[in-house]
C-alpha cells in the first residue's frame, strides 16, 4: 500500500494553451448541440411537410363543383305511370340543348359529359319523389364530372397544347359560359361523406368505408376488450409464477411485435379458408384486428393493475373479501382509467391498420355501404389504398381528403385518451 512516490509535477492551470483547449472543447459541445437541434428540426420539418402536403392536396376535395340547371321533364320522356323507367339521359340532353342551342347532335355526347354520370339518377330520384314535376321544369344542382371539376379548381393548365389537355378548347369555352351565367357553384362536398365508392370521382364518397371501419372496430372492441382484460387480470393477479405462465407472457410480447401482414395471412388461412367466413366482411376484419389489439390491451391493463398500490388489496383482504372480490370489486375499478386509455390507443392503432384487411379482401370495389358487419365492405385505410391507385385526377385529391378524415379520427381518439388519462388517473 505504500507505493506512493513523492509529489507529482503540477499542471499549470494558468497556461494559455489550456484556455485554448477549453475553448475547443466548448466549441465541440456546441457543435453537438447544433447537430442535435438540427436533427430535431429535421424530424419536425418532415412531419410538417407530411401534414402540409396532405392538406394542400386534399383541401380542394372538400368542395365539389356543381351546376344549377333547369331540367325539362316532358311527358315524352317520362311516363307518369312509371317515372322510374323514364329516359333521363334524353331529359338531360334536351335540357342542355336549351342552354347551348348552337350545339349539334354530334357534339351533344361531349356536351353531356359536362354533367356527372350520376346526374341522370339524381333527376330520376327527384321526379320519382315528386311525380307532379312531370310536364314541368325541375331546377336541380348536380355535380359536374371530374374533368370539369378539375378545371374549375384550376388543376388544368389552359396554356398546354390542346392535344395534351384533358379538355379541348371548345369544352373549356362551354364551361366558361356556364360560369359566366352564374350557374356554377362549389358547395361543400357532402358526397364525400354521404356516398359510397364509385367509379366517378365526383360521386365517390367514404360512407361505405366509414361504416366498414365502424363495424370492424366495434367487433374488434367487443372481442379484444373482454379477452384482453380477462387475460391481463389473470396474469397479473392470479397466475402462479411457473414456466407455463412465463410462456404465455413471452407469447404475448412476441405477438405484439409480429408484422401485421402475418395476421392477414392467418386470417386468410383460418377465417376465410378453414371457417369459410364471408370474404371482405367487416366482421372478419374486426376479428383480425382484435387479435392484433389483444397484446396492446393486455400490456396496458397489466400496467394499470400494477399501478394500484398493494395497500388497497391488503385492506380489502383484511376485511374478508376473497381474492376475486378484491380484484373485481376494488382493484379493477381503480385501474379502469388506465385500461380505457390503453384500449382507446389500441383501437386508434387498429383503425389505421391496412395490410391485414387487404389480405382478407376488404379492398374490393364496393359501391354501397354495408348494412351489417357481415356484408362485404371496405375500411377507411383500405379505401385510401384503393383511391391512391386510381388514375383519375379527382381521386388524388380525394385520397388526401380521406387521409385527413382518418387523421382527424385518430387525433380525436388520442386526445380523448390523453384527456381521460389526465382527468381520471390518480397519482398514488
Amino acid at each position: 500500500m505504500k507505493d506512493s512516490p513523492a509529489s507529482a509535477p503540477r499542471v499549470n492551470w494558468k497556461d494559455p494553451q489550456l484556455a485554448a483547449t477549453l475553448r475547443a472543447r466548448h466549441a465541440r459541445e456546441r457543435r453537438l448541440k447544433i447537430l442535435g437541434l438540427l436533427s430535431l428540426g429535421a424530424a419536425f420539418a418532415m412531419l410538417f411537410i407530411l401534414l402540409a402536403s396532405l392538406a394542400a392536396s386534399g383541401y380542394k376535395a372538400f368542395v365539389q363543383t356543381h351546376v344549377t340547371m333547369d331540367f325539362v321533364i316532358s311527358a315524352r320522356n317520362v311516363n307518369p305511370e312509371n317515372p322510374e323507367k323514364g329516359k333521363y339521359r334524353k331529359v338531360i340532353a334536351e335540357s342542355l340543348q336549351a342552354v347551348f342551342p348552337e350545339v349539334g347532335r354530334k357534339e351533344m355526347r361531349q356536351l353531356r359529359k359536362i354533367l356527372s354520370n350520376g346526374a341522370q339518377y339524381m333527376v330520376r330520384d327527384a321526379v320519382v319523389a315528386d311525380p307532379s314535376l312531370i310536364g314541368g321544369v325541375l331546377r336541380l344542382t348536380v355535380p359536374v364530372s371530374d374533368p370539369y371539376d378539375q378545371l374549375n379548381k384550376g388543376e388544368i393548365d389552359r396554356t398546354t397544347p390542346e392535344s395534351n389537355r384533358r379538355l379541348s378548347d371548345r369544352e373549356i369555352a362551354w364551361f366558361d359560359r356556364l360560369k359566366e351565367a352564374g350557374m356554377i357553384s362549389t358547395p361543400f362536398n357532402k358526397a364525400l361523406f354521404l356516398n359510397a365508392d364509385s367509379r366517378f370521382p365526383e360521386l365517390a364518397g367514404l360512407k361505405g368505408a366509414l361504416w366498414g371501419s365502424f363495424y370492424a372496430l366495434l367487433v374488434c372492441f367487443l372481442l379484444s376488450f373482454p379477452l384482453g382484460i380477462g387475460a391481463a387480470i389473470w396474469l397479473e393477479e392470479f397466475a402462479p409464477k411457473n414456466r407455463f405462465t412465463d410462456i404465455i407472457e413471452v407469447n404475448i410480447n412476441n405477438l405484439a411485435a409480429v408484422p401485421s401482414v402475418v395476421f392477414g395471412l392467418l386470417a386468410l388461412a383460418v377465417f376465410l379458408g378453414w371457417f369459410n367466413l364471408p370474404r371482405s366482411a367487416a366482421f372478419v376484419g374486426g376479428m383480425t384486428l382484435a387479435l392484433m389489439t389483444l397484446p396492446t390491451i393486455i400490456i396496458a391493463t397489466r400496467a394499470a393493475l400494477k399501478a394500484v398500490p398493494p395497500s388497497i388489496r391488503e385492506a380489502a383482504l383484511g376485511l374478508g373479501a376473497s381474492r376475486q372480490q378484491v380484484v373485481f370489486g376494488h382493484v379493477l375499478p381503480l385501474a379502469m382509467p388506465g385500461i380505457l386509455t390503453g384500449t382507446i390507443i389500441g383501437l386508434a392503432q387498429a383503425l389505421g391498420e391496412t395490410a391485414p384487411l387487404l389480405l382478407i379482401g376488404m379492398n374490393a370495389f364496393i359501391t354501397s355501404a354495408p348494412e351489417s358487419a357481415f356484408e362485404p365492405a371496405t375500411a377507411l385505410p383500405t379505401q385510401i389504398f384503393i383511391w391512391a391507385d386510381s388514375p383519375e385526377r379527382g381521386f388524388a385529391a380525394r385520397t388526401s381528403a380521406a387521409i385527413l378524415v382518418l387523421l382527424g379520427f385518430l387525433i380525436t381518439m388520442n386526445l380523448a385518451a390523453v384527456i381521460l388519462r389526465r382527468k381520471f388517473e390518480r397519482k398514488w
Partner: protein
Amino acid sequence: MLWLTFLIIVAAAALAYVLNLRAARRLWAEGARLHSITTFHALYALFLAALPAFVFVVLWLALSGPVIGALVLSGLPDEVRAGATAAQENLLLSEIRSLARGQAFGEPEPWKAAAAARLTALEATEGWARLALVSLIAAAGLIYARTRVSASFRARQRVERIINGLMVFCSLVAIFTTIGIVASLFVESMRFFARVPFFEFLFGTNWEPQIPIREDQVAGAGAFGWLPVLLGTMVITVVALVVALPIGLFSAIYLNEFASPRLRAVAKPVLEILAGVPTVVYGFFAVLVVAPALRQAGQALGVDVSPNTALAAGGTMGIMLIPFISSFTDDALSAVPRSLRDGSLALGATRGETVAKVLFPAAIPGIVGGVLLAVSRAIGETMIVVMAAGLIARMTINPLDSVTTVTVQIVTLLIGDTAFDNPKTLAAFALGMMLFLVTLGVNIVALRVVRKYRELYD
C-alpha cells in the same frame, strides 16, 4: 337466425339470474344462513345457462359449414365428382353457395341448381336444429342451477372457479393465436414446398411468380427463388436506418441532455405523432411527395431516377422509424445511473463530453435493442413499400433501383382472384413464414439485449 340464437342465450341467462336471485333472497328472508351471498347464486345460474350454450353454438358454427359442404358434395352426380381434385371441389362448392345466395352468372346447369336448393334446405334445417338444441341446453343449465339453490351451496366457490377458468381461457387466446399463425403458415408453406423445392426457394436468385393459370396462357414458367426479394427488403431497411439512425440518435441526445424541460415536453409528443401516423398515409406521402422530389433532385443532378426507387420507399420508412430510435435512445440514456454522469462532470468534463464519452457508450446495449426492434419493424412493414416500392425482384443493392420486398410480394400475390391452391398463393405463405421467423429471431435477440442491459444497471 343467428341473432335469434344469441338472443335466446342472453334471455336464458337473464332469466336464470333472476330466478336464482329471487330464490336465494327468499331463503335469506326465511332466516337461513347462506354460505354465499345471493349475487353469487344468481351468477352461478347465469353462467350455467349461458356458457355451455355459448360454447355449443361456437362449435356448431365451426363444424356445420364443413359438414353441410360435405353433404352437398356427396349429393352431386357421380360423373361430376369423378377425378375432381380437392381444389376443384372447393371451387364447385363456392359456386353452389353463390347460387344459393342468388348470384347467378348466366344459366346454371340443372344439377347445380338442385345442389343449391339442397344447400338452402340444409342450411334452414341447420338453423332450426341449432335454435332448438341451444334452447334445450340453456334450459337444462337454468333448471339445474335452480335446483342447486340452498343455504349450504357453495355458490361463490363455484362461480369463482368458473371465472378463473374464463380468465385462463382468455390468457390462452394468445397461445392459440400464435399456434394459429405458426400452423397456418407452416401447413401452407409445406404445400408450397411440395411443388417448389425448398432449396430452390431458399437459394434461388430468380423471382418470377407469374405462372400460367390455364394451359393456353402465355406467361413465364414461374421461378420462386426468394433471394432477390430478401435483398430488396434488406436494401430498403438499410436506407430506412440511414435516415432514422442519425436523426433519431442526435435528437434523443439533445432532448435528453441539453433541452429545457419545456422543449422536451413539446418535442416528445410531436415525435410520437410521427409514430402514430398510419403506414398507408406514409405510403401515399411517399408516392405524392418523396418520389417526385427525388426524381426532380435526380434530374437536377443528371441522374435518371425511377418513380419507385428503394430510396423513396426506404427514406419514407426511415421517417416513420425516427420516433422508435429516438425514444429507445432517450430511455437508454435516462437509464444510465446519475452517478456516472456526476462522476464525469466532477472530473471536469463538459456536458457534451459526458454524453459522448460516458453516457452514450454506457447506453449502447439499450440503444442496440431499440435499433433491432426498429429493424424488425422495417422488415415487416407493408403499406409503405406496397405503395412506393416496385414489383420486380432484382439482385441489386443500388438504392436508386426499383426493388421489391417480401411484404410487397405477399400482398401482390394475394390481392386478386386466384384460387387458394395456386402455387402463387402458397408462395405468399412461404414468404410469410420466412418473414415471421426472421422478425421473431430479431425480436428475441433485441429483447435479450435490452434485458441484459437492464440487469447491468438495476
